[in-house]
């Protein structure tokens, strides 16, 4: 059965959403009462199953999200591994090293140090379980802070972080880091 006009709109919004979309926001967008939106969401969820789509719409954390159908995981996983070299690039290794020594640290701080955007690399490192978000900075923007994981230590054959070789700390102090970060803001926020 073809989708209703409202269900199509919900689907389009979920397609571009990166995080689960609360039904309240959908209701606002569609200018409809929430309970009516819930009915539309049910229609959408149902249609994905009846049309045998490769993805499903699920209710999660008070919102809706599109995700791949579980039985297609083998293909998705194979795709995720396409083009992934079996070694970390020099850039990724440097980012990981900075996080290891300066943790907890925000992406913007690492980027300020390395002089390049590190969003893609941190996503990769997080996805592979070498780093993990451990909290948020207190300053404006409340940037996510990252730290290395036990898996990271395990891969390196270490028990504790302080077993990493000592390095001469060439880094400016936290104030200078904050300043660097400040300078980057226009770029990062653009």
């Amino acid at each position, binding site marked *: 059965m073809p989708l209703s006009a409202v269900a199509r709109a919900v689907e389009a919004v979920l397609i571009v959403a990166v995080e689960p979309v609360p039904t309240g926001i959908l209701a606002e967008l569609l200018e409809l009462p929430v309970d009516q939106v819930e009915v539309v969401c049910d229609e959408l969820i149902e249609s994905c199953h009846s049309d045998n789509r490769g993805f499903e719409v699920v209710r999660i954390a008070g919102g809706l999200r599109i995700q791949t159908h579980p039985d297609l995981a083998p293909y998705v996983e194979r795709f995720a591994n396409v083009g992934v070299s079996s*070694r970390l690039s020099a850039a990724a290794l440097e980012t990981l090293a900075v996080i290891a*020594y300066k943790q907890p640290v925000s992406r913007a701080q690492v980027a300020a140090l390395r*002089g390049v955007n590190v969003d893609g690399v941190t996503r990769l490192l997080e996805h592979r379980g070498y780093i993990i978000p451990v909290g948020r900075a207190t300053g404006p923007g409340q940037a996510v802070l990252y730290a290395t994981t036990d898996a*990271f230590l395990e891969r*390196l054959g270490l028990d504790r972080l302080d077993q990493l070789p000592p390095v001469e700390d060439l880094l400016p102090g936290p104030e200078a880091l904050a300043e660097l970060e400040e300078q980057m803001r226009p770029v990062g926020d653009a």
Partner: protein
Amino acid sequence: MVATVSIPAYTGPIEALLHLVSSHQLDIFDIPLADMVDGFVAEIASWETVDLQAVSEFISTAAMLIELKSKRLLPGSGEIEPDEELIGWEERDLLLARLLECQAYAAAADGFALLIEQAAKAIPRTAGLDPDFVVHAPDLLEGVTPDQIAAAFMRATAERPAPVVDLYHVTVDAVTVADAVTEMVRRLPGSGRASFRQLTGHLTSRIEIIVRFLALLELCKQGRVSLDQGHTFGDLEVAWVEGAPTNLAVTGLPTDEYEG
């Protein structure tokens, strides 16, 4: 078939006629254009089939002759050279072609703007992998040691050169033609003939070799050395001119420094 004309002053292809006029071998006033056209029209009538190529060639060339003649007939325009006129036309045609091309690309740009506007209405999905999707990927840290992590940290935090091109930090081999002239004046007299390769064999940078060459050219200009190149791209034979002054007070030398 070639468009030909037959007038008292000339008989032959019309294109050659235009050449004669533009090169002053024939005066445009000696060409009765109306008769020339009548003659050509009469000739066409005798053709079994009309050759469009020949006809267009005639029309285009005749039009140029008519414009040329009418301009010459007008007072105050006598000083315009016929060949300049023709050059003007050629330039104009090229410019016209370029402007037409520009208009085509302007139209293409309008099309691009339209495409961009339409494409912007569809937004691609960029959410990436489902956040809780577990990828059993090969271990990317295979073989990496803690020391390598430390080294990577040092690399990452090492001071970076400012993103401006700062020449103060660059070692510059400044070489001047004057220095090279001095060297040659010391070395060449009494050494007989030397090849350019021998003279520059000990040099490592291209700019030093070039400056040496400039110095030799300068000395040659001053009549103090003779340069001889047996064949194209052959080695240059350099010889000091017997009796030429060996003083170093050379004047009028370029003082530019060449930086390698």
